[in-house]
């Protein structure tokens, strides 16, 4: 079987398209590359969605944590402590145990033109359950990074905003928030990289793989198990993740440049030169 044929058969196997059965014997390098790469779709999906939604909760958490009012501050502190203070491995396990205990019901949500039924049993599937855990986890980490950055906003910036008569929402949106992002960006980049790495834990602990649809580590594990040779699949996995990490760095670097575009060339902080605070 040619390699191109293998890619057609297994390229989208991890999301349920193509051959139903995984290769069983005479494993070629091409098969290993294709399937592990196919599993990477899940890692990217988990990472992108969790980061995307997590960004907003993180901003809210950072603001709540720096609020004067203890009714806002205490819950935010507790949330951040709980998720930053425990290993993700254990969070996955506990979350799955809780999700399976929930009563299996469907809730109808009217969307105006149509109605969708949200079912709690989806929570025990990785595509939703793991996203929720990763989302809460990254929100807590990012919230702490943003909180740290918020505390480091130069007081001159705030005073200048006051002098311009900016208050409340306008002052936050136009002065404090952009500065916070600029300060937090290097650490946030690291957090994003860590989150993508953490997605390998999804099928490894806690969430079961259905119909052999798993992430990159799941397939690497499959091949290591079938060939009894860990020295081929895991380095392939490592190679894929290095590429993924490089893309994350490139993307976040581009955003970093945009965040700092008002500064003269040589004063723009280069990304990751001064790795900051707390993941």
């Amino acid at each position, binding site marked *: 079987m040619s390699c191109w044929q293998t890619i057609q058969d297994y390229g989208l196997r991890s999301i349920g398209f193509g051959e139903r059965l995984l290769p069983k014997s005479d494993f070629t390098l091409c098969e290993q590359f294709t399937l592990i790469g196919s599993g990477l779709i899940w890692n990217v999906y988990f990472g992108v969605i969790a980061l995307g939604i997590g960004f907003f909760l993180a901003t809210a958490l950072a603001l709540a944590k720096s609020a004067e009012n203890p009714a806002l501050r205490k819950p935010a502190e507790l949330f951040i*402590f*709980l998720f*930053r*203070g*425990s*290993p*993700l*491995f*254990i969070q996955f*396990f*506990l979350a799955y*145990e809780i999700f399976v205990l929930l009563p299996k019901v469907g809730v109808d949500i009217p969307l105006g033109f149509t109605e969708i039924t949200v079912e709690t049993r989806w929570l025990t599937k990785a595509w939703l359950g793991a996203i929720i855990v990763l989302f809460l986890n990254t929100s807590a980490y990012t919230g702490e990074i943003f909180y740290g950055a*918020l*505390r*480091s*906003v*130069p*007081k*001159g910036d*705030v005073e200048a905003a006051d002098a311009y008569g900016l208050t409340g929402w306008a002052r936050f949106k136009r002065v404090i928030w952009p500065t916070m992002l600029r300060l937090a960006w290097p650490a946030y980049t690291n957090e994003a*990289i*860590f989150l*993508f*790495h*953490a997605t*390998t*834990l999804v099928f*490894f602990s806690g969430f079961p793989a259905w119909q052999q649809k798993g992430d990159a*580590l799941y397939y*690497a*594990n499959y091949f*290591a198990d079938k060939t*009894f*040779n*860990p*020295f081929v699949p*895991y*380095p392939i*996995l*490592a190679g894929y*993740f*290095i590429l993924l*990490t*490089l893309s994350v760095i490139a993307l976040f670097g581009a955003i970093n440049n945009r965040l700092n575009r008002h500064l003269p060339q040589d004063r723009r902080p280069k990304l*990751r*030169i*001064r*790795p*900051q*605070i*707390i*993941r």
Partner: protein
Amino acid sequence: MFSFCTDPSDLAQFQWFSCYLTTGKHLAFYTSFGTIMLLLVITAPTALLFGFGGASAARSQFAPLRWFGKAYTSIVRGVPDIAFFLFFVIALDQAFEWMRHKVKCPDWQDPIRQGIDFVVCRDAKLPLSSSPQWVHETYGFLLAVLTFAIVFGAFAANVIYGAMRAVPKPQLETAEAYGMNNRQVFWRVLVPQMWVFALPGLSNLWMILIKATPLLFLLGVEDIVYWARELGGLKTSVFTYPHADWRLWYFLGLLVFYLGLTHVSETILARLTRRLSHGQATISGEQQRKATP
């Protein structure tokens, strides 16, 4: 443990639990908490050493060394730690045995790799197959420490490298003006000053290290996750203390342990950070200034 534990099947609940929680297996579970702490205590300085080496190499004038340093930090940081753990221990073990084989049995004729088998001469085995079990376990533990140190050393190298570059240039230029050579500038001016800049990143790394320890069971060390799974799993009456699936309770126990550990670390690190932001022209510095009458 207790004298009434001889026949656990007809004990009252309290006594049953006092027997159950003091079985040899549970004692091993409690010991494994010590293993985790030991690992953290040994790995942290080792990783720091690796990090320092990596950062110094990345700054080196000598190009191959510089490439090596940069490749080490960027490759290892680009790979999920779990992927490393899954094959690194075997790789390290084979590498050590291969080296010993070359030294100790130079006139060995058979190939080392026979198919998938990895065969070295008897003297090159690490540890020797005649050595007692505790030697094997210590060796396994040290391999785990080394693996952790290599992975976290790469992160530490990145932090330290950044901190070295954060030391103000004029400081180094002044040192040169005083007639110090490169080596002197590095050891006498750069290294003492960089720690202040490295501290936030390093303390962060410490927290990540704590939270990576549940993966220790992948490295063949019987850690707390291994025991929690083992003890919590369903026990039929083959066992002296049969019980249902109690993994949830054991994992909740682990959760409490980790929360406690991070809480203690966080308190200590927060104190250090507060000291550092004292007098800085930032919001937190400003709050501190206003707080003092």
